[in-house]
């Protein structure tokens, strides 16, 4: 039967030829670069890469460095809060907008606007807003509440939450539009059926609508999570990692090691750790979404 079937390799030849440059780039730059980084993370590279093998030394040093540990802790706090809050806020905003409110387009644009801005701008804006001299604290005190204190960026214990606020402000819009698109894809008649069944709106969301939006949720999750892992510019612009090392994050650690401390080996090791984290998230997702046979939905 398969004797006269055309060779799969030569079908759509034009498309395949056209894709070659991209495939080559992907292979050499992404895969090659990644492999190179991983290999050199086992060397004693300083200012320049040097093929001097030191085994796991760089990793041992990495996990013995306070700054890296704080960076990891910050990432965990920021990541967890960000993940939960950005979904809750984004979904609630989307659900509100989905009620066919007036000025929907305006509101959607306003909320999505922060996402169109660079993290650097967001960082600076929130640096000012949270600055005790110019920002919220100053305004509230100006109204008359003299003892009001709100300076998260100047209190090491909670500085990361100051960053979190800025991150949420920027990230909620994206989650909102994705969720809104998902909500709009739900058949109106399902809502009607649920009303006839006497199911309250919140239960309809939780038991019917959200399960139907699974693909949107997963895609959003991946976007949000990868955004969290590589958070860098927001920190640089808003706190510079400070006060002290209170808001250090892994990506900034990598950057500092590689380009300021002339310690490429450390940077490579740290970035390999980050890669592992992202891989641990993305690979199961990819298998779930694209691999295996399609589940019934």
């Amino acid at each position, binding site marked *: 039967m398969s004797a006269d079937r055309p060779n799969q390799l030569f079908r759509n030849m034009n498309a395949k030829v056209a894709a070659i440059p991209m495939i080559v780039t992907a292979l050499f730059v992404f895969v090659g670069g990644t492999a190179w980084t991983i290999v050199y993370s086992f060397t004693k590279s300083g200012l320049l890469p040097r093929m001097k093998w030191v085994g796991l030394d760089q990793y041992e040093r990495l996990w013995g460095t306070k700054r890296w540990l704080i960076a990891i802790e910050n990432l965990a706090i920021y990541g967890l809060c960000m993940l939960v809050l950005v979904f809750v806020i984004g979904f609630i905003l989307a659900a509100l907008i989905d009620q066919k409110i007036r000025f929907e387009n305006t509101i959607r644009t306003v909320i999505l606007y922060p996402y169109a801005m660079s993290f650097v701008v967001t960082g600076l804006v929130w640096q000012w807003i949270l600055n005790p001299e110019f920002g919220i604290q100053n305004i509230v005190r100006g109204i008359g509440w003299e003892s009001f204190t709100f300076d998260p960026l100047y209190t090491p214990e909670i500085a990361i939450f100051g960053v979190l606020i800025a991150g949420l402000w920027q990230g909620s819009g994206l989650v909102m539009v994705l969720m809104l698109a998902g909500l709009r894809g739900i058949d109106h008649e399902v809502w009607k*059926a649920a*009303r*006839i069944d006497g*199911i309250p709106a919140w239960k309809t969301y939780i038991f019917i609508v959200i*399960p*139907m939006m699974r693909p949107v949720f997963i895609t959003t999750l991946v976007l949000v999570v990868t955004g969290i892992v590589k958070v860098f510019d927001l920190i640089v612009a808003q706190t510079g990692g400070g006060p002290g090392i209170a808001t250090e994050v892994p990506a900034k650690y990598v950057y500092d090691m590689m380009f300021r401390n002339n310690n490429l080996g450390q940077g490579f090791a740290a970035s390999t750790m980050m890669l592992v984290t992202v891989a641990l998230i993305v690979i199961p997702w990819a298998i779930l979404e694209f691999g295996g046979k399609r589940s019934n939905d």
Partner: protein
Amino acid sequence: MESSISIRDLDLRFGSVEVLQGLNLDIGVGEFLVLLGSSGCGKSTLLNCIAGLLDVSDGQIHIGGKNVTWAEPSERGIGMVFQSYALYPQMTVEGNLSFGLKNAKMSKAEISQRVARAAEILQIEPLLKRKPAALSGGQRQRVAIGRALVRDAEVFLFDEPLSNLDAKLRADLRVEIKKLHSRLGNTMVYVTHDQVEAMTLADRIAIMKGGQIMQLASPNEIYNRPKNLYVAEFIGSPSMNFIHGELKGGDFVADGLSIPMTGYEFADSSEKEGKAIIGLRPEHIATGDNLASAVSRTKAKVSLVEPMGSDTIIYASVGSHPIHIRMDGQATVKPGDEVEIGFQPARANLFDPSTENRL
């Protein structure tokens, strides 16, 4: 007739768009009422008002003797079936059937008994553990009907339940819905724009146009005695022939044509004079063996023949008037032939061209 649903002076506006205006409708207990009309005439809107899915702008709705104008859909004693099935895709068939009942805090025993009964009636027992995605269109629609069934509702509302199915399945399910109605005996309101569904299912049909009911009557009455031109034109396929002419001394006269109207029942049993439109169904124009029963005869020149197996539609002209005629499927006619045709005044329809109402 005791009424199950009674609608009083119902108005519904979307912003400034008047969709339903001063609509009155009484539906009897156990009646099968079909709402029929062209797209956009407000059928779904009316059904959604009955269901409580739309807030009415004015007027009242009573179901089972209770004023439910402002009651929640779930408190109206209704079940509803949608065109897109609207099943909950992440739940099994059983979950779909029982979710509403669970939510209403019904006992487990009662739920499983109701689900079992619905599954038995609809013959979906083997499907109970499947998800909707693993069902065919017809099976999905059965489950959707089941979801209405387990609610033990007095009133079933259907919004074009068969429109997404292929012709064969549609015919099968149509029969099943009819059987279901005679078995359960509850009130059903059924929206469709398929005439065949309307004619076969309905006890009464309400023909709607622009948010108003044009005629509310039995299928037979609607077919044979349409109240106005719109209804006459809407019902029947191929549609009725219309010829403009004049009523003169008991005859209908148009150029090259004169039909004595003896035997025609005028609307208020008084003969009329003046301009009129005669409406003749293609199957009520007699040919061949049927000519004997026809009162007035004339010749028609055939221009086109459409054999359809069970019958043959011929397009012809009488004088200057194009008409189409339904003939026996075995008739042998060719374009260019002259056929003798006859009219049966008792089965004709006369309309006033200015008011468009039946004379």
